[in-house]
């Protein structure tokens, strides 16, 4: 996952440069790189990653990603991993992000990627999908959700300062969310 983020760092930087302040790619790269070098598999991995994201990323994405991972960790810990658990972890992550950031679908944020991912994951789980299938459905929906941010006018985060001028650009946080879910899905295959 860190590799995926690192590989897309410049793309995310560029997306954020245009409608934000240009740090999103570097922030996430730093955070996931720290996670890779620190998390040792000794404890609950998701929880460790969450803590590292909160303490290494900064910016808006740090607390939002961190909270998402933290809530997801709470939803999976102590439960055998199956499609339902994965879907509920994603739902918990979304709930955490929304509770903190107060963004709704259509505000041109990571929620626009995460919310459809949750919906897709839940229906995949309901139709008996495996962990891999649920994550694959989430990743596909997140990519579509991210793409849907292009025409939107931002109502949350820095891009909102641009008003109408934020339309026509992909939201960096939605894009990174889709990338992270894609990495999960690929890892689960």
């Amino acid at each position, binding site marked *: 996952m860190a590799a995926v983020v690192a590989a897309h760092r410049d793309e995310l930087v560029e997306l954020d440069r245009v409608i934000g302040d240009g740090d999103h790619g570097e922030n996430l790269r730093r955070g996931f790189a720290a996670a890779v070098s620190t998390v040792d598999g000794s404890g609950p991995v998701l929880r460790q990653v969450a803590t590292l994201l909160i303490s290494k990323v900064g910016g808006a994405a740090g*607390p939002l990603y961190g909270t998402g991972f933290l809530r997801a960790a709470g939803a999976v810990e102590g439960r055998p991993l199956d499609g339902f658990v994965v879907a509920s972890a994603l739902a918990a992550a979304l709930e955490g992000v929304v509770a903190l950031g107060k963004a709704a679908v259509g505000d041109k944020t990571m929620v626009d990627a995460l919310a459809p991912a949750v919906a897709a994951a839940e229906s995949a789980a309901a139709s008996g999908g495996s962990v891999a299938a649920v994550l694959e459905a989430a990743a596909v929906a997140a990519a579509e959700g991210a793409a849907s941010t292009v025409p939107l006018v931002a109502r949350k985060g820095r891009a909102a300062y641009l008003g109408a001028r934020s339309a026509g650009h992909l939201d960096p946080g939605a894009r990174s969310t889709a990338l992270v879910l894609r990495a999960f899905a690929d890892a689960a295959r």
Partner: protein
Amino acid sequence: MKKIINEPATVVVDALRGFEVAHADLVRVSYDPVFVVRADAPVRGKVALVSGGGSGHEPLHIGFVGPGMLDAAVPGEVFTSPTPDQIVAAVRAVGGGAGVLLIVKNYTGDVLNFELAAEMALAEGIEVRTLVVADDVVAQRGVAGTLVVEKILGAAAAGGADLETCLEIGRHVASHAFSIGVALEAGTVPHVGSPGFVLGPAEVEYGVGIHGEPGHERQELRPARALVEGMASEVAVQLPVGRGDRVLVLTNGMGGTPPVELYLAHGIAERSLVEHWGVVVERRLVGSFVTSLEMRGLSITVVVLDGARIFLPEERSRLARLVEWWDAPVRTAALRWGM
């Protein structure tokens, strides 16, 4: 991208090393986690003031750490808010038993990270309150007005105001501070490598913030008189009373603006505020205090020190103290008088 740096990844820490040797009499610098505290921290019995945010806005906030102003500043990466663990460490280092006030510029990232930090500090039993500054009239961001809030609170806290009083004073000043910015050329974030926006040879970005994000709209560069009068009007319409308001005017450079342009603009701003808007300019400050890397441009901030008609008579004597607090001695790297 041309900059006098070693490499993008170490800019913040490399600059802090220089800041530390330059001001060893005023501050101590922690590098892991990164924060800056006044040399004599913690000051027993005084409300501690902690601010912070992304780097690239220097001297804000590190240059305002010292007697009469901030107890600590917490710099994040360039244009990236600091993380909660940095903030909590700074809070621990300066808490003097009378509580800690966090002064936060209104950005999603700053607000979230400072709020998480406040929760963590509270959980450790440290009394913490948070003040959000949103003086930018275009998009309610925290910009140059933040320094006025920090100076006035610094004096109030030094004078013995308790945590709730500090919060109340801070809210009052923050809600009476109005700013607008313009850019002639954007700065370049070191790890991005190209500027936040690129302007034509006669274009400006009007209504910019301090993170290289494009502004409210692109305009043609007009003579200073027209440009700055327009900016002054944009803040003046926000004033509670207008005519008769006693104000402080801050003309702030964005990092790449030479003093000759700042003074020129300041003259226009003051004259226009007085002549067209009837305000009384009680205090003023001109310089590059809240910057955006090497961005060329400036902001105009007006802070109401007293608005004769909006305050109940019994409140006025307290509010008149804003001038006194502004004038009170301060000894920091970037603002210094009276000591």
